[in-house]
Every structure is written in structure tokens, then in C-alpha cells.
């Protein structure tokens, strides 16, 4: 049975030494200076096919993604000097019985990713998402990471599998798509102990 979720954390990314570098990419928290380029990517219709929001204009983008909550849960991916996508990392509180709420508070994250179509097919999403798991488990000390997707978003499901997330649930016609109507969703998760046990 549902209980109210505590307010978002003010500075969830603070424990991380930014920027974080992978083999080919640089990952860092978003700033308003990035909005022009990030809107350019989100304005491509195929990018938002499976995403929550399709901004109608730059102004609309800023209104949706310039909020304090979004600014503290969005990272950008750079390849060389170019931003090629963004990442969502939202720290949240999973279900707990009331008496042990303190121990559950802020112990989980939901993650998501998008890549400019000009850069897909080269493993950048997988590289960035895998690094996000490392950030969640090693830098932020979280115990569980979840990700959701439309069931027909094959590219996203492939990334989930590659980074070691398990499909835990499939909701039947529970998610409303702007063009396709009520369609299935999948929920994936990985625990810190599973992530640590996985060879990398």
C-alpha cells in the first residue's frame, strides 16, 4: 500500500568527483548552458518516440527540463567537445514499512538515457549507462537501480541487458503512448551485490 514519498534531495550528485570519464566519454551534471544542444537532440522526433516528453519548442524544453528537480537529476554525455546525449539519474526511496523508512530513504535510483541518432550504433549508450551504474553503486552507495521502458523500445532493452539489468516486470497495456495508445512497459533492476559480482 502506497505511502507518500519524501521530497527530492537537494544535491544528490555532490558525492561524485565530476567530471567522470569512461574510455571514450565524459559525463557531468547538466547546466543551463547545455539546453540549446540538448533541445536540438530532443527536437528530433525519433529521439522522443519512446521518451516521456516531446518538447514543442525551446521554451517548452526549458520549462520542463530547467526545473530544480531536473537539474539535479540530469547528466550530459560528451564525446570530444560535442554533447551527444543526456542521462537521467534520479535518487528515490523504494517501498518500505513505515518503521524502517529511514533505512530506505534515498537508497535507490531510477536511470535513463538518450543518444543523438547521429551517434547511435557505436555503444555509447551502453558505455554511459554502465558508468551510471558504477556511479550509483560506488560513488553514491545506492543498493538498487531501476529503469523502465516501453516494451517495444528494443534499443533500450538491449542496453539494459548489456549493463546487467534484469527484467523484473512487464505491465500489460498500462502505459499510454502519444501515438500508439495503451502499450506494454517493462521494468528492469539490478542490485549492488549483483553488479559487484558481474565480471567487467
Amino acid at each position, binding site marked *: *500500500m502506497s*505511502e507518500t514519498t519524501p521530497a527530492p534531495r537537494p544535491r544528490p550528485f555532490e558525492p561524485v568527483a565530476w567530471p567522470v570519464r569512461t574510455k571514450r566519454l565524459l559525463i557531468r551534471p547538466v547546466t543551463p548552458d547545455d539546453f540549446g544542444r540538448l533541445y536540438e537532440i530532443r527536437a528530433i522526433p525519433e529521439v522522443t518516440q519512446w521518451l516521456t516528453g*516531446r518538447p514543442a519548442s525551446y521554451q517548452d524544453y526549458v520549462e520542463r527540463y530547467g526545473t530544480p528537480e531536473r537539474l539535479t537529476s540530469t547528466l550530459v554525455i560528451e564525446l570530444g567537445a560535442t554533447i551527444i546525449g543526456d542521462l537521467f539519474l534520479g535518487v528515490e526511496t*523504494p517501498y518500505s514499512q513505515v518503521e524502517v523508512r529511514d*533505512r530506505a530513504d534515498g537508497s535507490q535510483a531510477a536511470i535513463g538515457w538518450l543518444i543523438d541518432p547521429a551517434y547511435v550504433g557505436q555503444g555509447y549508450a551502453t558505455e554511459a549507462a554502465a558508468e551510471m551504474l558504477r556511479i550509483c553503486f560506488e560513488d553514491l552507495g545506492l543498493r538498487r537501480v531501476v529503469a523502465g521502458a516501453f516494451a517495444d523500445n528494443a534499443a533500450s532493452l538491449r542496453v539494459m541487458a548489456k549493463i546487467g539489468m534484469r527484467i*523484473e516486470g512487464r505491465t500489460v497495456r498500462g502505459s*499510454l503512448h*502519444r501515438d500508439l495508445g495503451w502499450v506494454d512497459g517493462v*521494468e528492469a533492476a539490478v*542490485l549492488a551485490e549483483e553488479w559487484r559480482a558481474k565480471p567487467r
Partner: protein
Amino acid sequence: MTFDRISWPRRTDRITIRPATTADLPAVFAVRSLPDVAEWMPDLPTSYDEWLLHLGRSGAVDRMLVMEVDGSVIGDLYVHVEDAWTQAEVKAAGKDAQAEIGWCLSPDHQGKGYATEAMVELVRICFEDLGVRRLTANAFADNAPSLRVMDRLGMTREAHSRADSLHRDHGWIDGVTYALLREDWTG
């Protein structure tokens, strides 16, 4: 409020179902404060006054129905109408499109089919009177009696989540989510 649109009480063969009133709360507390009952419930209330405060503050009292048999409250039901997950552009179409349901039955009345009987009626109320298109119910995976009721209601297990729920005594354990669409409901 959600329940205002419905004419109460609703009756099944053995049970009367109606929104909880202040006068019902001591009887509901008497059930909820039993450790065996609270094992799988969101809280184990120990003080009636604190429990009342929590009920009011969380809005839970507005989502509570009671089950009555022969004039006695034997437990409570829970209905929380909520928005479905939608893409932002079609958010309005997902408003109040689904409901989460739950129940809590006095141990004296368990094993007699009361939970199933009441929940069959609650499913009908949700689909026919509240007009939702989808129902969900959540439980700890080890709460076998609750899972049996979900099965009997024709709900489908959509998710089994590993160590996603924190229990006050058992630590991090698995949770399950069941769902039922109106179009799959056989009434």
C-alpha cells in the same frame, strides 16, 4: 472525493461495504495493531492517537472502506485512484485511469473467503462505478494469503521485484505487483 460518486452501502452475500467513518476507526485499529496482521502491512501502529494522526496526514482515511458482517467491522479495504503512466503530451488521458487496491482482514475472520468476497465487489466498484481501466495490487512476495486473493480475483502477476521492499523484521525482501485490465475482467 472518490467515494462520493457511489451509492453506499454495497452488499455481497455476507458482507456490507461502505466508506469508513470516525466511529469505525477504533475497530479498524484493533485489527491493524495486531502484530500478526501488521506483519505484511505498511505499518504496525502501537498508539491509537498517532495512528489517527498518520491516517489523516497521509490521506489514507479518505481511501478506506470497511467490511461489516452482522454489524461488526471485520476489516478494511483500500482504494487509491491514481494517474496511469503516460507520455507528457497525453497526460490528461491518463488522469485517474487506474487504482491501487488492498485489504486487511481480522484474523478471527480469515479462512472463510471474506477477503475474496469483498475484493470481488471492490473490483466491480472500481471498474463500474469509479470507471478506472486498470487495477494494481502490491504485496510482499512471501504474503501467500494475499497472493491467493489476487489470483482468485483474476489478477495477473506483472512484476516480481528482487529485494525491492524493506520489511521491519525481514530486511530487504521481494515484492510483487499484480494487475487487471477492465477489458480482461470477467466480472
